[in-house]
């Protein structure tokens, strides 16, 4: 489950393989939007694999707080979506539960859940994209690998976010079972990092806003937001993801993302 800011390697990206000056005038807003997404994707090729710990803080309307802790291992897959393994540490009753997913650009993802009490691996339905992830305000589709082909794009305007010049693009999900009709994303012009996303539900109402902050650069190249705040405007709840201890190029292979490893993950 590579997070938000990365967009996927794909043949389209090769069209823009030469670093694309941000100012290149594309013919239509759609082509401009796609060019921005493809450039963001191109800049995040080559990280190979990563692991990180994540703390999730859930707040309800009354301000009550509950916490979750997970660990995420990810593998970059050339020519397809990423593979990821999520290990649940908190709350205590789900400790040892693990989730394996193979993301695909256009095909449905492959997902398995390991239930430690029964030692059972369950293949789960790939249609479940829009539901809450661990009871949070993040949907699975918000935190799964963001392939370029998953959306169609439209460049809207330039705008500053907290003093940073940014592109504003509209993304329309192209995959089935999305919970959104569209998303508006702000990417900073210098590094093509997603700074903010507005989500619009199936009725077209603005339901959630995500802000991504505390960006840090790894291997002198790859930017990762260490804090993500999702606010749900309809139910008054919010969720904060705090990432910690990112480590890249651990030498992971497909073998570290198979069902035998899923059963062993603790």
């Amino acid at each position: 489950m590579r997070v938000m800011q990365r967009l996927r390697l794909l043949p389209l990206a090769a069209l823009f393989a030469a670093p694309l000056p941000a100012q290149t005038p594309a013919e239509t807003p759609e082509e401009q939007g796609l060019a921005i997404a493809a450039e963001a994707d191109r800049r995040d090729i080559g990280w190979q694999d990563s692991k990180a710990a994540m703390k999730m803080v859930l707040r309800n309307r009354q301000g009550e707080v509950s916490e979750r802790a997970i660990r995420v291992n990810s593998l970059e897959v050339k020519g397809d979506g990423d593979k990821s393994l999520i290990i649940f540490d908190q709350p205590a009753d789900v400790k040892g539960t693990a989730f394996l997913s193979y993301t695909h650009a256009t095909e449905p993802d492959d997902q398995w859940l390991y239930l430690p009490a029964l030692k059972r691996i369950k293949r789960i339905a790939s249609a479940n994209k829009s539901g809450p992830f661990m009871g949070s305000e993040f949907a699975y589709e918000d935190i799964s690998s963001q392939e370029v082909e998953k959306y169609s794009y439209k460049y809207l305007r330039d705008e500053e976010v907290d003093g940073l010049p940014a592109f504003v693009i509209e993304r329309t999900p192209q995959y089935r079972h999305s919970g959104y009709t569209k998303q508006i994303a702000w990417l900073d012009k210098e590094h093509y990092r997603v700074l903010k996303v507005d989500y619009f539900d199936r009725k077209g109402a603005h339901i959630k806003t995500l802000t991504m902050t505390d960006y840090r650069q790894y291997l002198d190249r790859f930017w990762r937001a260490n804090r993500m705040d999702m606010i749900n405007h309809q139910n008054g709840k919010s969720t904060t993801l705090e990432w910690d201890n990112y480590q890249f190029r651990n030498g992971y292979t497909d073998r570290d993302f198979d069902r035998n490893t899923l059963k062993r993950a603790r």
Partner: protein
Amino acid sequence: MKGTGYRPGAWMLWLACAASPALGADLSGYVAAEFRAFTSTALDPRQHDENLSVVAEPEWSWQWNDGRSTIAFVPFARLDQNDDERTHVDIRELAWSTAHDAWELRLGVRKVFWGVTESQHLVDIINQTDVVENPDGEDKLGQPMINLALINDWGTVDLFVLLGFRERTFPGAEGRLRTHPRVDVDRAIFESSREERHVDFAVRWSHAIGDWDLGLAQFHGTTRDPRFVPVTDPDGERVLAPVYEQINQSSADIQATKGSWLWKLEALTRSGQGERISAAVGGFEYTFYGMFDTPLDLGVVAEYLYTDRPVATRSPFEDDVFAGVRLTLNDAQSSTALLGCIVDLGESGRLCSLEASRRLSDHWVLSIEARQFQDLDPGDPLFTLRRDDYLQAELAYHF
């Protein structure tokens, strides 16, 4: 306290100590209190209509080499108010494992699950069922084994040498949810002269190909699923003696995952307990995600259960349908409920159950369970449970 638990050899303790590079154990687990109330008076005056019970299952785990080497130790203990057989201890796990590119080796007491269906776990055979825990059969006793997994592009081949046999647990004279007459575990009859020291073998191939998850398995050894013969105890009580025969079982389990649909099938054929028998369970699960524009998921499960085995060997599911709904609130408390009924198509008879759970706080989880046995035919193996409808609440503290 009656110890039915497997007592591990000294070699295993040595293994646990020697292989652990003293990285410090990770401790987790739970303790829980459970209360059961039965809605009808028991058939046997020795039985009770209410029951309290406490259980603990801590887990110590060690891992090193970035998780490629692990040791797990999971003891289990239950103390039951009324049933001496349900008061028991076990070692659910005490195992060391090492993972390499092409193989994994796992040694010690472990639990292994095979299968895909919801209403019955037909092909799951490695571990013995801890029946006293819950009539749903999902609780298992630890099984000592050597398990070598060979990992190939064309699937994983698991080889099992099962060192010794675990007898099934059964409720005692004062326990509910049992047969009448009761099963006396001290009267077990084995076909093999090696009895519970018989070494069993199993091999399984499993693979995922696109939307399909496939498993094929072969088991040779002592049946986990005994027949019963009536015998008379020295004190004159008529009881049932479990008969553990040597069997050969071939099985397949298949799941196809198509969008919101899960299609599932488990099938087996077994020889060694009288005539060759075959059995199958198959069906689907369909989930409506995000019902009514809420985070709520509603799953519908339907499965058909078939076996040609004679009633004398006590499988109640020879021509039955399971229908159930699973409700997942997707809230911060992880609230879920599963309501389902198994209906006998040939005779009358219906077994309905409700299982629901909700996290109360970071550490506390409340679970509710209810089972009802309706319109049972006197010829149905479940007829013996006709007075055992119950409601159960369990409060667990997880750490």
